[in-house]
């Protein structure tokens, strides 16, 4: 296999090539960095690239391998969403507020990856503080979709998804609060997983809405997702919501037979609102699962239409509290002019935050303020319970749920410029999953007018292994996940 083919293959192939000493970590990192340099002016998938830092990591990975050949993942490159603190790396969260913030410590996810010898290729672009569905809210400019540069890659982890789709990285980290891994994975034609809430430590991950945020992975296949899930999962006492469990590694269970698996089809998710083109693709993917021996059952998620209203109360409320830490005193942007402490806070925040972040902070302060707390915030939390109960009932009838990720394919840049709230409504199939805290993934399922469409698979709490088995079996039976955007098939090497 030549280097160019190898770079397009993914984690499993790279690990084998590194193991057989066919290629070194430094050679692989150099080649990806060259690709990033070629694609960056067009795609803007990265906020920060630091060649020397990356090559230092790669050299270290090569010596790790030489010292202990059992380190099967040392030297695999990865793009890090710019929301995970990484010591010595500028960590901006896509915000002017943190434009000059060099993280003084590693987040848990970065720590786990570093321990295995993963090499950070750069810091992936994202919507500011992970708020957005199109990556147009980044202070560092929008990311373009590698399948069509006039379209968005999805968000908020748009840079991570675009980088993997364009072949600039074999894998990337992401975070998913309302769909921010699954939707860009779907729109960029790659695989992405959002684990069960509590499976991956949130320590050092810049918080947006803490009861919903969960770290996950983008890669070229379910197999690669499984390998990376096993690296980043696990209990961490530094995150009080991290759960101590001893689940079997996902990668070991990957080849389990899925015949007889009961696939739940939410009857509410295929009606009005779902575009005809996406519907056809998702329905034929489900048909494929049936041909593979799965059994379809209709399920009822009557409360799922309440997910968007509940989310836009809960998430802004938590954001307004989380983002109060940005005060211009301890880190982040400080205004140049102020006459007293109140003005220092107000101006630093007014200048440091972009419009979407301000919108959500304002909304959050409103729903938490005196006289509105019960009517909005508590009511939203009660509805959240009902949404979770729907899923609990559904999983008595089925083993996984299958459906669309988003109602359409990636939309053109600037589509919602004048009407930001309209964009919220497109997250109707992803948000219920975050509210319930369930694991879910998106895998490539086909195309609608040349743009990729994802199939969403949702599992019961802690059943990532079952989701990945299903996705892996689907990827053995189909080749949608191997399709690459023509625009980026000519990258050198």
């Amino acid at each position, binding site marked *: 296999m030549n280097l160019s083919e190898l770079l397009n293959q993914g984690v499993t192939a790279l690990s084998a090539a590194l193991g057989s000493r066919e290629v070194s970590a430094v050679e692989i990192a150099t080649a990806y960095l060259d690709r990033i340099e070629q694609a960056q002016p067009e795609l803007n998938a990265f906020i920060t690239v630091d060649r020397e830092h990356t090559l230092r990591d790669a050299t270290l990975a090569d010596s790790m391998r030489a010292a202990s050949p059992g380190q099967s993942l040392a030297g695999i490159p990865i793009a890090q969403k710019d929301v995970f603190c990484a010591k010595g790396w500028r960590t901006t969260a896509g915000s002017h507020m943190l434009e000059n*913030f060099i993280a003084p410590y590693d987040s848990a996810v970065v720590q786990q990856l570093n321990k295995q010898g993963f090499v950070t290729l750069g810091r992936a672009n994202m919507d500011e503080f992970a708020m957005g569905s199109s990556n147009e809210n980044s202070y560092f400019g929008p990311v373009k979709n590698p399948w069509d540069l006039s379209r968005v890659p999805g968000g908020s982890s748009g840079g991570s998804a675009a980088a993997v789709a364009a072949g600039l990285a074999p894998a990337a980290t992401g975070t998913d609060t309302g769909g921010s891994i699954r939707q860009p994975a779907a729109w960029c034609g790659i695989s992405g997983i959002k684990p069960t809430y509590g499976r991956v430590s949130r320590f050092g991950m810049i918080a947006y809405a803490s009861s919903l945020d969960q770290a996950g992975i983008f890669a070229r296949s379910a197999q690669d997702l499984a390998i990376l899930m096993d690296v980043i999962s696990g209990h961490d006492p530094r995150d009080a919501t991290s759960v101590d469990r001893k689940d079997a590694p996902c990668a070991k269970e990957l080849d389990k037979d899925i015949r007889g698996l009961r696939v739940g089809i939410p009857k509410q998710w295929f009606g009005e609102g779902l575009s005809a083109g996406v519907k056809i693709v998702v329905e034929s993917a489900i048909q494929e699962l049936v041909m593979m021996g799965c059994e379809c059952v209709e399920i009822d998620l009557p409360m799922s239409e309440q997910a968007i209203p509940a989310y836009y109360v809960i998430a802004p409320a938590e954001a307004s509290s989380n983002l109060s830490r940005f005060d211009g005193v301890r880190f982040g942007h400080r205004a140049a002019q102020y006459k*007293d402490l109140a003005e*220092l806070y107000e101006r630093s*925040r007014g200048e440091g935050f972009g*419009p979407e972040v301000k919108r959500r902070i304002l909304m959050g302060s409103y729903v938490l303020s005196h006289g509105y707390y019960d009517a*909005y915030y508590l009511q939203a939390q009660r*509805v959240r319970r009902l949404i979770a109960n729907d899923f609990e009932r559904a999983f008595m009838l089925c083993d996984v749920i299958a459906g669309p990720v988003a109602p359409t394919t990636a939309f053109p840049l600037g589509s919602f410029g004048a009407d930001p709230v309209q964009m919220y409504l497109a997250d109707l199939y992803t948000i219920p999953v975050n509210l319930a805290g*369930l694991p879910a993934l998106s895998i490539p399922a086909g195309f609608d007018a040349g743009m990729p469409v994802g199939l969403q698979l949702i599992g019961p*709490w802690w059943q990532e292994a079952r989701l990945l088995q299903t996705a892996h079996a689907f990827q053995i039976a189909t080749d949608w996940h191997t399709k690459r955007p023509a625009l980026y098939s000519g990258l050198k090497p």
Partner: protein
Amino acid sequence: MRFTEEDVRRVARLSRLALEPKEIEGFQQDLSQILDLAQKLQAIDTTNVEPLAHPGSSSVFLRADLVTETDQREAFQAVAPEVDRGLYLVPRVVE
């Protein structure tokens, strides 16, 4: 409900956010729209439904109350806008 200019100013004050006059009108419209969205929740009967604060409610983990971190004041203050002899500097608050 329609957000008035004064409503936006009030939540901006609560949020410690300085807004430009030209931003306020846009936020009036956006926040009114988000609130319309949130109003839909009022129609749901949630009698006797316990609020769900986060999905792992049943299993919150508390660690032992022990000192595990070492002093890293210099590293943490290296990213601060203004420090002097280990202290964060802010405008005078007590006359």
